[in-house]
């Protein structure tokens, strides 16, 4: 038996994935599209604002959402976070567990935490390298995390580290429930 880990053999066939790229910056949107096409993706839709993005998402043919945080104001306002909230929580959302990549130049920790708490799968800080973008895209597709529903949060498990066996008390519950 080969001692090469399975992950080294795994491949992603991007021709079988449908993308929606929401990016008001024409050049950056075109670049994401060109990179996806170079990866053999054939189904790539684009939007620049909240209204047109949700209109496409409602059709139910999107597998992966790649969205910028700051959107064009022409679509009635709203941000990429509103799209994430719609996908994760709106009854009309056809796939609440869709992988979502958030791309933004708002790369400070505060924004990363807000995106995580809204249910983003992967965060891509601009400016980014193509390799950084690819790594997060591949993780979102090939390594989906379990989902969590608690209080007002529905989205991927926000804990990334797996610490193995844990014997202690349930950390998600406050002391008064134990």
């Amino acid at each position, binding site marked *: 038996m080969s001692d090469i880990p399975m992950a080294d053999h795994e491949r992603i066939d991007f021709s079988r*994935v449908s993308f929606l790229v929401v990016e008001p*910056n024409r050049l*950056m949107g075109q*670049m994401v599209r060109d990179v996806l096409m170079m990866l053999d993706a054939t189904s790539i839709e684009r939007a620049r604002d909240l209204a047109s993005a949700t209109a496409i998402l409602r059709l139910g043919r999107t597998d992966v959402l790649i969205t910028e945080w*700051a959107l064009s104001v022409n679509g009635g306002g709203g941000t990429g976070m509103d799209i994430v909230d719609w996908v994760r929580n709106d009854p009309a959302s056809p796939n609440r567990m869709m992988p979502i990549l958030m791309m933004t130049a708002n790369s400070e920790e505060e924004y990363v935490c807000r995106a995580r708490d809204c249910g983003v799968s992967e965060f891509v800080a601009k400016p980014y390298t193509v*390799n950084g973008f690819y790594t997060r895209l591949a993780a979102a*597709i090939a390594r*989906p995390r379990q989902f969590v529903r608690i209080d007002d949060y529905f989205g991927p498990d926000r804990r990334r580290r797996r610490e193995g066996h844990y014997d202690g008390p349930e950390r998600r519950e406050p002391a008064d429930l134990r």
Partner: protein
Amino acid sequence: MARKKADFLPPPQDLQRRAVNFTKGYRLKLEPAELRRLEEVVEKATDAFTAEVAERLRQLRQTIADVAGGNDEPQAMRIIRALSLDIKGMGGTFRYPLLSAYAKSLNDFAVQVDRPSAVQTDILAAHIDAMYVVMAERITGVGGRRERDLLEALQTAVEKHMPRHG
């Protein structure tokens, strides 16, 4: 308030089953040659990037003139914030990290200022001038000593003239 216990749902596997395989497509870690091909996509867009930044810098200069003229300063500052954030996001992607650094410094300042004073307007304008130089001289990478000194000076000016809230 007591929190409910979390419900855990297994990761969705439809997409994974459809797209992940052992024969066709790209490995989770790209081969160097594959990565080079993707980087070429970015390189091919460099001319378009230069034109896009030039247009944004022109808009920034126009907006600074509006600010100096006292024309609807809060709206002008919103435009400056949006344009500087846009440039920050593009620069490093196209091998202009110094441009991103200047744009970040400008954005950090602009988000704190609604009605800039004369000195604050000068600081905003100095950032825009610095970005013009980066593009005119085509300074890719992080620049040399002079460019880093200028960045430090801009950041010092921002720190010194940042409005104090609260």
